[in-house]
């Protein structure tokens, strides 16, 4: 193998007293694709941020071509040929592609014409379709990612680090990205990508580093392993996966929720939702698939009453609730687990018990002579903590101190109780580790078994397939089609998510 291109030796990193990385050592060769696999919080991003100079390691050494190096800032990393694409892109939405790419790479007066030409040529070289004059805010996420890659290429990078690069892409876009990774490494460059998706790892990586709880638990060639072994290494135990076989047949065919020709006009004049019609039966899970930002949030908020549609009606059990206020809908039995729990789902500086009270604080059952009946509330919260196995010492624990998965369980517990008839889940498992994901999936299926109706928005196709009875695909605010989940393949759904219409897609496409 010769000398490694880059090598990390005995890296440890502590945040306050929490161990983020402990004694992490691995190397990357020239021309290699290395996958960094692990659950959320396993320390994958942290170790890469150390290599990129964003974080400072507390212990350990870095080497390039066998020589020890110091990387104290991204600037120094870039000078060594390292670029990193963050999970949340670091692009300036209000600026053009050109301005974003040259930021930090120019001095003095800027000759925009020259740079535009340069960037155009570079984009053509890699087969990226990009207009250097476009504003980032107008570009789709997949294209924004190309801008990030181009930014790295512009800096003549030899080691490209990508943090969860496919999380925001359609399956076809992801495939294109993998194509680029192969081209790029064929020229002797190296790529490290951080992921928790086993399938991706198996399709593109040459070697796999498995991380768990801040340590390396495996350094394996792809050819010498399989998905089962990797998942065991990653989680540290076996998981009982929810599969389709665990589900009962849909019990009831009675219609619960109807969305009739709903259109939502945005201030800009572009409709966020266009003529949407969906029905949701009792005891049914309707999955809404699509790349995020295609109207999912708006659809959820129309159902729970946070926004009013410009046109169309929403009915529950045949009753028109289009004009009903949020509180009336809560009373009616509509629960809503929003995608962003920290800003829309809970109040971080309040206790678990208080967060459980949030959407029913006006209810007489919590009151005792005009004051909150603390005793009763705490009892209730304690019961929920047990039922949902929330890891917290008491109902008085402040929400901020909980892990993401446990915070999500608090929101889930509240909304499952609120939603006696309909529960809307918007990305219920985003950013959670596999254990928590599994638990939440079981809760969703349990509620379905009770006859509740579930609207499940997710960008993770595996989640959609694992849970949904029927699947609707949302693209640019329009429904591309509604299917029984058995009728769909990943390829077909990918094309529908990318904007192709049903007639244009056959099942063996892609």
């Amino acid at each position, binding site marked *: 193998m010769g000398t490694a291109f880059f090598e990390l030796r005995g890296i440890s990193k502590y945040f306050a007293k929490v161990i983020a990385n402990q004694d992490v050592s691995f190397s990357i060769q020239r021309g290699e694709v290395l996958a960094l696999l692990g659950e959320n919080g396993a320390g994958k991003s942290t170790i890469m941020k150390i290599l990129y100079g964003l974080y400072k390691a507390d212990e350990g050494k870095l080497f390039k071509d066998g020589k020890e190096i110091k990387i104290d800032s991204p600037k120094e990393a870039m000078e060594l040929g390292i670029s990193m694409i963050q999970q949340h892109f670091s692009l300036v939405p209000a600026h053009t592609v050109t301005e974003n790419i*040259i930021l930090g*790479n120019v001095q003095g*007066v800027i000759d925009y014409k020259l740079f535009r030409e340069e960037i155009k040529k570079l984009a053509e070289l890699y087969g990226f379709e990009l207009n250097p004059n476009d504003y980032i805010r107008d570009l789709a996420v997949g294209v924004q990612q190309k801008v990030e890659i181009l930014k790295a290429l512009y800096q003549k990078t030899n080691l490209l680090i990508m943090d969860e690069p496919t999380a925001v892409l359609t399956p076809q876009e992801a495939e294109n990205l993998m194509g680029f990774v192969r081209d790029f490494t064929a020229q002797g460059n190296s790529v490290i990508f951080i992921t928790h998706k086993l399938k991706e790892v198996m399709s593109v990586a040459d070697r796999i580093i498995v991380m768990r709880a801040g340590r390396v638990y495996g350094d394996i060639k792809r050819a010498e392993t399989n998905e089962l072994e990797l998942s065991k290494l990653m989680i540290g135990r076996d998981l009982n996966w929810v599969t389709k076989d665990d589900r009962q047949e849909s019990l009831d065919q009675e219609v619960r929720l109807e969305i009739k020709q709903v259109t939502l006009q945005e201030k800009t004049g572009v409709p966020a939702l266009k003529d949407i019609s969906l029905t949701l039966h009792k005891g049914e899970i309707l999955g809404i698939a699509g790349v995020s930002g295609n109207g999912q949030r708006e659809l959820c908020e129309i159902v729970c009453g946070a926004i009013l549609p410009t046109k169309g009606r929403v009915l529950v059990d045949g009753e028109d609730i289009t004009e009903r206020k949020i509180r009336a809908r809560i009373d009616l039995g509509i629960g809503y687990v929003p995608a962003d729990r920290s800003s829309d789902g809970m109040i971080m500086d309040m206790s678990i018990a208080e967060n459980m009270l949030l959407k029913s604080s006006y209810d007489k059952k919590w009151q005792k002579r005009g004051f909150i009946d603390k005793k009763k509330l705490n009892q209730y919260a304690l019961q929920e903590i047990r039922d949902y196995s929330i890891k917290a010492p008491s109902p008085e624990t402040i929400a901020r101190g909980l892990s993401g998965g446990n915070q999500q369980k608090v929101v889930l517990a509240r909304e499952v109780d609120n939603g006696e008839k309909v529960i809307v889940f918007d990305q219920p498992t985003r950013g959670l580790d596999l254990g928590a994901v599994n638990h939440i999936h079981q809760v969703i299926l349990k509620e379905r078994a009770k006859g509740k109706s579930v609207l499940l928005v997710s960008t993770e196709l595996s989640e959609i397939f694992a849970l949904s009875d029927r699947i609707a695909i949302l693209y640019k605010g329009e429904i591309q089609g509604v299917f029984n989940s058995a009728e769909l393949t990943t390829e077909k759904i990918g094309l529908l998510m990318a904007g192709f219409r049903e007639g244009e897609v056959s099942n063996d496409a892609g």
Partner: protein
Amino acid sequence: MIYLLSATIMMGTPLLFGALAEVIAERTGMMVTAIEGIFLMGAWAGFVGGYLSGSLIVGFLAAMLAGLLVASLYGWICIYLKQHQVVTGVAINLLVVGLCSFLYRVIFGVPITPLTVNPLATIPIPLLSEIPLLGPILFNQNILTYIIYVLAPLSYFMLYKTSIGLTIRSAGENPEAVDVAGINVLRVRFLTVLLAGVMGGVAGAFYSIGFLGMFTTNIIGGRGWIAFAICFLGNWNPKGAVIGTLAFGFAEAIAIYMQSTGNSALFPNELFIALPYIMTIVLTISRKSFSVPAKLGVPYVKEN
């Protein structure tokens, strides 16, 4: 009429100094809410420096230094200690009011007649000032006005055509992008706040030694806030700031004109004095589209 327009340009000069300073700093995400205090400190230091040394140049240098000091205090608290920009600014503004009147008394006691210096003289520019109409309006002004003629287009060029400008604009929109590009966000922000302090100090001194020739604690009277508002109204763009400044300068010129002619039979004088402030409110609520820097007022905290 010529007098009015000429006064518009003159009274607009310090406002534009302040507004440009504010535009540049706010583009990095820093609302310089201490601008009123910076103006006042500049007015005080300009007067003290000018009076004691007998030289207006020393006065203006003192004003720049004073503005720099106030700005560095503000910048340190808001940028490095990550405190709230509005709260910090208000606190500093109150502090400066007390400090100025205290220090004025410590140095000069309580004089029976107000102390004065000779304010900046107008410098007619040969030939240009003889152009009919435009000449006396534009080219019979004091040195600071001529400086701002250069500074305004220069700041536009700097913001939109240079790498420094790109960094400044990016810092206010997405500081992480700047950080990842290997540029120190906090330093960028701090330096622009310091620049705002220097420019604001000059603007303040314009009122004391550039125009009135004396100092009182209410000499600024909210003009720092007007410069602040002009930045908003001008959509964070030097071009917009120039237009906004002309409008406010005109309003102020009318107020001064009416005061000096004593022609208050039709309208009470106070109305004209209040005019710039009323305009601020009306224009602020009537504007429809803003292109606010996305991270304006948000401290940059690295997640390390």
